[in-house]
């Protein structure tokens, strides 16, 4: 791998985002819940790990599961009242949740360090070997991503995953087949927050410095954009979307200072011309037969969840 440290850092960030986006796929892709508060859950995971390791001196390996569990509890507490809302009401409520999280993180200075954030988060160690450089961290992050994707695929294939998709497609019909709609929605929401918290913990251990602006509502929208660009309802799409949206600004850098303005137009063009995302692209038959990419399987997986 002839990548510079800077590019490896971007790949790491894309992999961490991919974990969060696979989580968002449960809430939005499967259960159809528009959540604009995903970054707040990522932030809770990150702040949980950062506080437990720096303030209490815990080991990262102990802090991670505790932070994830804490985030899941918060997701249950806010999910029970908020998930009664639908569509853009839910979108704006979760957005308000994310904004509130940012305000608290930026102003509760005694605990969160305010806008200065928390630094000197200890690095992860595996069997006495510190994951201090980008390359070794990437291997670890890829293992986590693979595990996340496999667990997500298993849930998708199980009756729980199918229940989520049924709820998204028709709430009334699925409740008549005996599905507890509220419970399925809550499960999808909490599952998405667990993935988000794992991503947040990975982020904190990788950057070793976090601040409120890493978890603003704009990041929630970015996660949603990654999922829609990749193709919602598809795990491969979630990963592709996270990669593309992380690297697109980089590839547009040749445009000079205008690259971010073009970034918006690019995303818009993808939404207009690829309405089912990257995972929904109809590849030419030749490519499919060669089997260079397992597109048919991919297509079948993404079609299964699409009405």
């Amino acid at each position, binding site marked *: 791998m002839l990548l510079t440290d800077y590019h490896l850092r971007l790949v790491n960030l894309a992999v961490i985002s991919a974990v969060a986006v696979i989580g968002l796929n449960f809430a939005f892709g499967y259960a159809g819940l528009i959540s604009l508060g995903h970054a707040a859950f990522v932030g809770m995971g990150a702040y949980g790990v950062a506080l437990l390791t720096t303030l209490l001196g815990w080991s990262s390996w102990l802090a991670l599961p505790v932070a994830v569990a804490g985030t899941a509890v918060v997701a249950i507490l806010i999910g029970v009242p908020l998930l009664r809302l639908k569509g853009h009401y839910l979108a704006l409520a979760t957005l*308000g949740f994310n904004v509130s999280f940012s305000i608290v993180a930026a102003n509760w200075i005694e605990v969160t360090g305010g806008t200065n954030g928390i630094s000197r988060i200890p690095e992860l160690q595996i069997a006495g070997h510190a994951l201090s450089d980008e390359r070794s961290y990437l291997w670890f992050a890829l293992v986590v991503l693979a595990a996340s994707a496999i667990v997500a695929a298993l849930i998708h294939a199980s009756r729980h995953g199918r229940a989520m998709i049924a709820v998204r497609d028709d709430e009334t019909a699925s409740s008549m087949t005996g599905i507890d709609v509220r419970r399925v929605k809550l499960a999808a929401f909490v599952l998405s927050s667990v993935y988000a918290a794992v991503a947040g913990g990975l982020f904190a251990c990788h950057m070793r410095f976090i601040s409120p602006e890493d978890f603003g509502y704009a990041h929630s929208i970015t996660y949603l954009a990654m999922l829609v660009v990749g193709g919602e309802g598809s795990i491969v799409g979630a990963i592709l979307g996270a990669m593309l949206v992380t690297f697109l600004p980089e590839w547009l850098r040749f445009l000079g200072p205008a690259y971010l303005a073009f970034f*918006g137009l690019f995303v818009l063009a993808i939404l207009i011309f690829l309405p089912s995302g990257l995972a929904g692209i109809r590849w030419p038959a030749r490519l499919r037969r060669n089997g260079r990419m397992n597109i048919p399987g991919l297509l079948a997986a993404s079609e299964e969840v699409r009405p």
Partner: protein
Amino acid sequence: MTDLIQLLINGLAIGSVYALAAIGFVIVYSATGVVNFAAGQFVMFGTFAGVAMLLNAQLPWPVGYGAALLAMALFGALFFAVLYLPLRASPVVTIIIGTVAIGITMQNAALLAFGSWPFRLPSPLEGVNLTVAGATISAHAVAAVIVTALMVALLWLLFFRTSLGIGMRAVAQDIKAARLMGLKVNRLLALSWILAALLAGVAGLMLGPMWFADTSMGDPIALKAFAATIIGGFGSLPGAIVGGLFVGLSEVLGASYVSSAYKDLISFGIMILFLLVRPQGVFGERVQDRG
């Protein structure tokens, strides 16, 4: 007491700006069903249209204001053609992300054109102050409240006294029926985007002298407009006004009496409370299955 009067006027002035942004948001939502996440960038464009005409081109203010509003109307039409037409049949989330993407483009285009240095947009009432019961109030703040009231009156005339406005309301109610009745639906939809851009233009021109104008001012305004919309009632024009004024007042009074750091939590806390207890807001949305 004098402090309170001053705070109330300032809160009403900033609230008027939020109300105008929220009205634009509501008009577009009712007519086209689009939740416009670029609403804050619309207001930012309004302020910078003012900067371009008044500061860069040095036009006298009546001409400059007119030119800025004309530019905003053209922008509204462009937005309709580039964003709404291609995405109109897409799911809600795709449109939300589409408006966010366009918002990013708008913000960075403004950054390229004007730089990150903040501007001070002058007011025609620069330096004029009024004294009410011992409190010194800037005439611009009072004018902002009056202009908003005037805009609301004009909107009411448009929607309830002209065939154009009645057509727009018909499209908002049932687009298919409106088309069957022979209304030029696309033209009326375009008009609602133009109207939203114009209202954002007025809001931006009024906001410029109250805040320092910089290209990142759009997002906080959008968030306040969303909060105003939810508190007042999604899709309701009187709701947008009441919600906007409430958010402005809670921001100014909260910053002064509670905590300047947590002033925004008040409006968002109340917004979330409304969503949980009365999601239809103060002036409820009649249609049940909008969500």
